[in-house]
């Protein structure tokens, strides 16, 4: 059921991205030039901030036992990374192309500004549709992470999954209410998220390396026994 939900939100996101191409008519490429003008060190520094979008890829390891076609899983992982890269680049590109480099830093949500410029006769402001779709996408992300959390906790502590669900639900509903405004949320997230993503990347790379090394030696051991 989560899979169908994720597919639907993917198509909705595609619709927004296609709708934002309308803005290409009114602005010019001069807003983006010079390319690579800031220098490669600054580009690498900026890429650290965007790592957050690639998070949750390691959840692939949790669903691995349930996948039927195990050979295609590598291809699926690579395609999904490519899709995320494409979408992220497209959104940033359109925001800067439309608003110009000086205005983008003044806005809290640059892509919503782009969505506003799409004028259809019936709808007063395309931003409302944009908002509904974003909320659905956020809900999808939260539900996937919730599923992963309950599975992991179930594995560690041997409590039944249903009980974990009911215990975690009030915590998850009430915690976000402590952020009173956007400024507090950004300050809080800015401190925590780099550490979490760094931990995730290090952890997953470590496990991958260990699995790679141990597999070979185990195979040799079994062959020797037989």
């Amino acid at each position, binding site marked *: 059921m989560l899979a169908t939900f994720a597919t639907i939100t993917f198509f909705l996101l595609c619709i927004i991205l296609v709708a934002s191409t309308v803005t290409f008519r009114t602005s010019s490429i001069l*807003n983006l030039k010079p390319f690579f*003008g800031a220098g490669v060190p600054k580009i690498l520094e900026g890429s650290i901030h965007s790592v957050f979008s690639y998070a949750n890829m390691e959840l692939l390891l949790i669903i691995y036992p349930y996948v039927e076609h195990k050979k295609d899983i590598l291809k699926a992982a690579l395609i999904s990374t490519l899709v995320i890269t494409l979408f992220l680049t497209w959104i940033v590109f359109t925001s800067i192309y439309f608003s110009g*480099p*000086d*205005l983008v830093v*003044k806005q809290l949500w640059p892509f919503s500004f782009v969505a*506003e410029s799409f*004028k259809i006769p019936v709808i007063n402001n395309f931003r409302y549709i944009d908002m509904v779709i974003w909320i659905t996408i956020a809900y999808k992300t939260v539900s996937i992470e919730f599923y992963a959390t309950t599975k992991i906790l179930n594995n560690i502590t041997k409590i039944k999954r249903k009980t974990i669900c009911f215990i975690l639900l009030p915590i998850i509903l009430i915690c976000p209410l402590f952020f009173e405004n956007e400024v507090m949320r950004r300050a809080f997230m800015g401190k925590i998220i780099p550490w979490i993503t760094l931990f995730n990347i290090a952890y997953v790379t470590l496990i991958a390396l260990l699995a790679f090394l141990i597999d070979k030696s185990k195979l040799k051991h079994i062959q020797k026994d037989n």
Partner: protein
Amino acid sequence: MKRYSLLILSVSCIILYLIFNSSEGNLAIEKVDVCSGLSFDIVTNNPVKEYSVAGSVYIFIKKDEISSGVIEGIGKNIADTRASRQIISAKQYLLGLQKVFIFSEAVATNGIKSIIDIMFSNQQMNDSTWNVVCKDKAIDMLKFKVIDFPSSADHIDGMIESSIEQNFMSSDYKVMDMFVRLDSEGRNLILPYVEIINNRITLSGMSVFKKDKMVATIPIEEAKYMNFLINNKAKGTLTLQKDSSHLISTYGNVNRKVHCKKINGKYKFYIDLEFKGMVVNNTMYNDFMSNPKTVEKYTHELEEETKQRCYEFIYKMQNKYKVDCLELGRVAAATFGRNPETDWDSIVCNSDIIVNVKVKVNNLGRGQF
């Protein structure tokens, strides 16, 4: 029970929502003041600046008859004027459907940054509202009675929207364009300038801003050449006139490309313009329709004359107005690197600007009388 649980859950959610939320925010149209235009004035300057913000609202008294009235509010800042407007109004005020913002000259010369900030942070404001600067008091412009529209704000809205047909005007004078241009590197804000001449609202020029303060007003005859140099894909008329009875007019589109080069630390800008049009009026050359060499001769003469007029305007821009009206700083920043500290106005005023005009006549009409 399991089958009905989803239904019960959703119905109870809807009922809860209806109980707690139903009475807010939905009003009948008779209780709402729909505002069609706002005007910004400065009333006094000491000890503290006081703004007078007036809104033109629609009045529906008789059936099929819409008229408008003006509600004025005075306050030390824009948000206080809303409070002051509410105490003389019998209805709730609705933002978000404005067509026009009119700034008076005093407000524009003092700086419009605080007004822009309140527009930017409020999501309900309409981003495709036209901005104009007017002479004298802006509230007189709103109170002016027009015959063909319910309020003068509608009239100005139609005027600016249809002004792209002539004078090489563009439609980039909306609030959204103002946000993008105001603090952008190498770009300056240019807005239409209206005043009341001969009992009619007239677009009498263009006003040029430096950062957020207005520095110059350019009359429409000169502004035509400024628009010719700035706007891509604009329509207008170019006339070659030797005296009262010998003239040729051409109406067409202009396409613009700009390059920038840096030689010995001094910038050189090349503006390439291509003007394609239809000959509208011809009383100068009698063999225009039969001899291709006359057409060539005419295009050369028009090119020379247009170049000369453009250089006249550029000379005035670099020496009298001293502002970069032509968005050349933007091209230079895109080619050579961006730095918010550079003062593109002084760099462009000291650089060489070379204009190349190409004229093509692609339509000769029905014939020559």
